[in-house]
């Protein structure tokens, strides 16, 4: 994926929201990232550390809530959660007819500012 441009978007959205709330420094930013979103967490953190320099987020840490892949199988009705990044069939009955419910998230949740 594009961790550097994702890191830039995170920085832009965070700085914007911090200013709107009337604050000048960002202490931490919390992200929700699905395991199937295509993001390499290490690469994202590395890129964020590079782009945050000389901004109001220069000292900011990034906290990541990793969301596992989950879904609902329309064959066996099982509500499943898996540790896998991608799934090809229902972990319960191996049917291919399932719907993914979580795992593709790519969001900023909140942040600590001061």
């Amino acid at each position, binding site marked *: 994926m*594009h961790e550097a441009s994702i890191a830039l978007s*995170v920085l832009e959205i965070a700085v914007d929201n*911090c200013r709107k709330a009337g*604050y000048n420094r960002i202490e931490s930013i919390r*992200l929700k990232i699905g395991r199937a979103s295509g993001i390499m967490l290490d690469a994202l953190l590395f890129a964020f550390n590079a782009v945050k320099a000389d901004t109001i987020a220069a000292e900011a840490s990034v906290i990541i809530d990793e969301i596992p892949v989950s879904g609902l199988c329309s064959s066996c009705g099982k509500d499943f959660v898996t540790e896998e990044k*991608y799934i090809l069939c229902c972990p319960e009955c191996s049917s291919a007819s399932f719907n993914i419910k979580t795992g593709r998230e790519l969001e900023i*949740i909140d942040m*600590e*500012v001061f």
Partner: protein
Amino acid sequence: MKVKVVTRILEANERIAAENRRLFDEAKVYVINLMSAPGAGKTSLLEKTIKELNGKIKPAVIEGDIAGTADAERISSLGVPVIQINTGGACHLDANMINEVLESLPLKETDLLFVENVGNLVCPAEFNIGEDMKAMVLSITEGDDKPLKYPLMFQESSALILNKIDLLPYTNASMEKIRKDARSLNPSLKIFEVSCKTGKGIAEWADWLTEKIRS
């Protein structure tokens, strides 16, 4: 002090994609985002499809490439409006690149806009451009292991066009494996087997497209 944000990180792209979508709907244009690895045959498929549609559906094309105008010239020689986007290094098209060229296309006189994305099996699947449908081309010479190696594009696409089937006798690719793996990633995927060289399967694909646009 805690500040709630709850914003999609790719929100800027999503917003422009929605704006593109509004312009397409207003002009009644059906838009296909066509993706594949380099050399799978996207431009050849467009040439064949445009000839097959034979003016019954009025097409236009946006060509996305890192550099050069070779593809746009091929399409232009068919008398179809075409715009070339050179990304200058970027590995995919995004909503903003599309938005910037829309003014230069006769959208009101267009029924079907093909957006030929940059050749790449990864990144194009991650950026919406305001399309009605994503479709992908996989040439069988790329190997039958591609669905499981590049799952996202197979999951995001509504149609999979398997190209170069005239070369099947010369490869070890198993059509059955491609079909099975692609379907398990995306149960509703519509699969076409075509050869842009011999023309096999083009009519079936073009008929399906025509039906999609009119429905």
